[in-house]
């Protein structure tokens, strides 16, 4: 076995072969699934906690504050303390709530984000499943979460929650289109939907550079629509603190609330990860054709680091948006989608197709 930070495929292959050597293939697959599940769960917890901390620090700095600074050095253990608190908080039973759906909703939200993580390539060979329709799968899965939101709003027996859920429904239905079309634009450029091949195609230039202006437009649209899909400000109409108190999760407490909370951050991570994969070359280091020395230095940094740095950069962009802009109104939200993003997106798709057909894309 050869463990390398630069290529995980031999490492994963070694695990696979050693498992298959000791048990029947069916069992081996089952054990592998469990291992992947545990790995994703741990990753999920760490990234979730880190993102909560990062968000609080980022917004604090933008607002001339210090942010968490009491628990641990620089407040790094603050989110862990919060999590421990959330675990001990009483789960308040809601009168006349639809008990089954009420309890089911947070799980649907969190499972949807779990399933999306499975397809994301973190580094070379570090991908749970490399589907040949990866992009399509991610688009499909990432919109599953809204079912949980709708259920939560309906089952809570709270009028604010219901309004929040309905808003969320309208929002996701429309912004789905923009996310899809922005990604389709890039699929046209890449010529494949398989994520590993999309990344491989960016070895000599990330798509945001390769695709010229259409790619930049697609990226802007994707960030706007992606922010809307994750229900984050300025598109956080579903929870809209100043209007609907907390929207669809008003009635949730304790660990069930934590699920919603964590899922929001993970969805943000997933949106950023997809953006990284499609626009910024995923784990692919920054290469310039012909500059071999420079490329070698870039290759020295492990791909996992490349991936995380790019992802957190996109996440930072989304945080920056959230902490600067006021919230949109529901009709403006829909106007933005149907009047601006969608026509531009379709035009952009045509432009990209033209670019690819004429071979102007490098």
């Amino acid at each position: 076995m050869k463990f390398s930070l630069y290529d995980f495929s031999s490492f994963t292959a070694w695990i696979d072969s050693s498992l298959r050597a000791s048990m029947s293939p069916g069992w081996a697959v089952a054990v592998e699934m469990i291992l992947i599940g545990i790995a994703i769960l741990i990753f999920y917890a760490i990234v979730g906690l880190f993102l909560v901390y990062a968000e609080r620090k980022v917004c604090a700095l933008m607002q001339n504050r210090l942010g968490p600074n009491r628990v641990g050095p620089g407040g790094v253990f603050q989110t862990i303390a919060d999590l421990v608190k959330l675990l001990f908080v009483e789960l308040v039973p809601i009168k006349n709530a639809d008990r089954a759906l009420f309890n089911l909703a947070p799980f649907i939200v969190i499972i949807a984000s779990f399933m999306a993580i499975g397809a994301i390539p973190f580094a070379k060979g570090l991908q749970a499943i490399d589907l040949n329709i990866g992009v399509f799968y991610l688009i499909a899965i990432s919109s599953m979460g809204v079912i949980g939101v709708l259920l939560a709003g309906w089952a809570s027996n709270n009028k604010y929650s219901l309004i929040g859920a309905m808003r969320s429904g309208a929002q996701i239905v429309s912004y789905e289109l923009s996310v899809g079309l922005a990604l389709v634009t890039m699929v046209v450029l890449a010529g494949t939907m398989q994520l590993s091949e999309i990344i491989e195609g960016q070895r000599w230039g990330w798509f945001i550079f390769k695709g010229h202006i259409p790619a930049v437009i697609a990226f802007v649209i994707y960030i706007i629509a992606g922010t809307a899909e994750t229900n984050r400000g300025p598109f956080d109409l579903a929870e809209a603190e100043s209007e609907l108190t907390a929207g669809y999760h008003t009635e949730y407490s304790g660990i069930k609330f934590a699920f919603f909370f964590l899922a929001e951050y993970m969805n943000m991570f997933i949106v950023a990860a997809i953006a990284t994969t499609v626009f910024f070359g995923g784990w692919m280091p920054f290469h310039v054709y012909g500059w071999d020395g420079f490329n070698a230095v870039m290759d020295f940094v492990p791909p996992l680091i490349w991936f995380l740095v790019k992802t957190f950069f996109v996440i930072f962009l989304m945080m920056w948006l959230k902490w600067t802009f006021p919230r949109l109104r529901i009709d403006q939200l829909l106007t933005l989608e149907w009047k601006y993003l969608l026509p531009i997106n379709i035009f952009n798709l045509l432009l990209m197709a033209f670019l690819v057909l004429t071979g102007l894309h490098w």
Partner: protein
Amino acid sequence: MEEAVKAPVAEQEEYVINMGPQHPSTHGVLRLVVSLRGEIVRNVEPHIGYIHRGIEKMCESITYPQIIHLTDRMDYLSAHINNEAVCLAVEKALGIEVSDRVKYIRTILSELTRIQSHQLFWATFGMDLGGLTCFFYGLRDREMVLDIFEETCGGRMIVSYNCPGGLMNDIHPNFQNRTKEFIKYFRKTLPEYDRLLTGNVIFQERLRNIGTVTREQAIAWGLTGPVGRASGFSCDVRKHNPYSAYDRVTFNEILYKEGDSFHRYKVRMDEMWESMNIIEQLIDNIPPGAYAEKMKPVIKLPEGEYFQSVETARGELGVYIVSDGNKNPYRVKFRSPNFVHLAPLNLMSKGAKIADLVAINGSLDLIIPDIDR
């Protein structure tokens, strides 16, 4: 509304939500019973009285100097101006002319009060619309004004600095420097507010043509202050019936014609500039003199009725004192601007969306203790 009548019975059913008494956007314990049809607001019914303390009743059993500290607690963001209103009414009744020094200091402090009130308005208005960062910037700059208050008056919000016949004590030696420093700083910072919020396309779209009040409606409903002036109703008491040192300074009364939420916001932003102008005209010219007139230990107003109105940060505050010649007033009535502004909320927000209701409510800048008194 006519469609609603024609619609089948099932669609006429109202979806009633209670906004408040504890709700992030009602700025206190205001309860709005909102009837909705989908997102559209059909009817808003304000329920108030959650912090009714009976200040008018309490005033009947205490002396005039003691009334002052109760007025702090009505519109706590215009505490100084409220104090001034009662003092002016009492001084007018007794025929006392305070020294120029007192007039200048009162005017400067009134304008500082107005600035800090509008800063807090900006902060909370941004927060109501979802721009949370505004809240911290607004409070950050407001802190500087509060420091000026604390140094001179001893209190940050509840100043209790006026008393019939003048001021409680003289200004602190640092007062002028600190105020000038603040003005210098704030002239640089205020354009940042505009860049962050006023110019923002989302913000403008949220507010333009929302909660429109015409000039006629504004007069009929008695809307004063920034709310009235956004509709083109020239109602600035400082201009029309100047008190203290307002007749010695030049300033513009901010007037807009549109009368929507955005212009209510705009009036306040422009008023901050005007307030800074007023302060700059006065701060270097505070004349020497007594900071308080000699008053009798027990102040008794001659029998009669006295009405004094001042321009608080939110509109016209009227103080109506009926005296029967005793040391206690017979009846005190405060015509508080917020109480008047709450009444047409239903008129403004009918047909708007929930988010607009929050915006309209925010643009009225209601202070609930002033409504309840």
